[in-house]
């Protein structure tokens, strides 16, 4: 295996990287601290640790790319690098909020389909205000919005519908009616970005309710079936529309 000479990480931010690329990090993250405790930091040496996000892996001299996509960087809070890649298949990750469909009730535990390789388990006590006597009213086929508490490749993923302080915080059973559909994971992240234009423009149209799960599932509910379907079509199509096309489409709709 020929040793590849890597390129500096900062040079590739915003560019396409392929699996196998080696990214070199600036000197203050180097691990050879054998005598060089005095770092004459001429530049701004960021305090704290560097976050190596999805798509990257730590390897001796720097970061190794494992997915193809665009390299992103966030300088705040110690700095973070990650690869912005596109995929449709979801892999459960701890801490993610997802929409799950109840497929079975096995004793005290519900089995949910989250779109991963295994069904996730959800205990009936993991709802706000649930006790042994006071069980949540969950039927097979219900939609549940929760977060992962255990999610690794060796164990079955587990979900809960409360946060660390015991409050439900918007999680739990999603109500009646509405429409559930699946999109790619990249679009979800685009929609969840702060100040997303698509969401802002849609919110001017009609009153509606929206739940976005990180596993690619979106649930929409509006007053009439027609409005719901319009919103669904826009969300599905906006992945491949330019901003101008999207504004045209919305103008036509609000004109109607």
């Amino acid at each position, binding site marked *: 295996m020929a040793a590849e000479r890597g390129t500096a990480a900062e040079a590739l931010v915003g560019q396409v990287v392929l699996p196998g690329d080696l990214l070199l990090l600036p000197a203050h993250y180097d691990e050879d601290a054998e005598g060089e405790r005095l770092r004459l930091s001429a530049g701004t040496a960021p305090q704290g*640790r560097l976050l190596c996000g999805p798509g990257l892996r730590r390897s001796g001299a720097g970061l190794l790319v494992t997915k193809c996509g665009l390299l992103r960087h966030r300088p705040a809070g110690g700095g973070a690098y990650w690869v912005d890649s596109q995929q449709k298949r979801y892999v459960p990750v701890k801490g993610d909020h997802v929409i799950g469909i109840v497929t079975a009730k096995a004793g005290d535990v519900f089995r949910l389909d989250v779109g991963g390789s295994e069904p996730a388990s959800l205990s009936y006590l993991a709802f706000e205000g649930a006790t042994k006597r006071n069980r949540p009213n969950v039927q097979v086929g219900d939609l549940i919005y929760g977060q992962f508490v255990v999610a690794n490749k060796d164990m079955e993923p587990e979900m809960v519908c409360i946060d660390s302080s015991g409050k439900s915080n918007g*999680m739990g059973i999603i109500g009646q009616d509405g429409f559930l559909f699946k999109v790619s994971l990249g679009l979800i992240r685009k929609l969840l970005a702060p100040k997303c234009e698509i969401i802002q423009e849609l919110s001017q149209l009609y009153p*509606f309710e929206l739940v976005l799960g990180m596993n690619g599932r979106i649930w929409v509910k509006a007053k009439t079936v027609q409005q719901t379907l319009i919103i669904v079509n826009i969300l599905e199509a906006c992945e491949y529309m330019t901003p101008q096309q999207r504004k045209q489409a919305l103008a036509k709709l609000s004109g109607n």
Partner: protein
Amino acid sequence: FMQRGLDSQTKKQLEEEEKKIISEEHWYLDVPDLKEKESCIIEERSFLQCEDLVYGRMSFKGFNPEIEKLMIKINSKCKEEEIEEDDKMEADVSDEEMARRYETLVGTIGKKFLRKRDQRVLKDDDEDDEVEEGNSNTRPSKRAKKMFLKPQD
């Protein structure tokens, strides 16, 4: 084995031999110690830590009021980090009025916790001019503190 009648010397020899055997059997690493390097890189598989993502449940134009309240709460939590200066709210009551209120307030609340006898003293102080006889009767008895009266015989 410690047998009776064994000399202390032979005992010592036996102990030493045992120790030798034990220490030879102990395994040890022949490799030089690896230095623990403190890594400065954390690996993370979640996008939530990298990007600043909004909460996934949203409602617009009043469709679901509870979720709109939740959205405001979560957004205000994020904004709190930015807006730290505008903490002083405009007071409804001015400072001077507040001071005046407090002066009288201390008096009225203080009265509430006085014991019954002390309350009478206060009342007498107030009604100085009106009932003088009552005053003259009660005051000396107040002033002479109630001491224990020894029964005679």
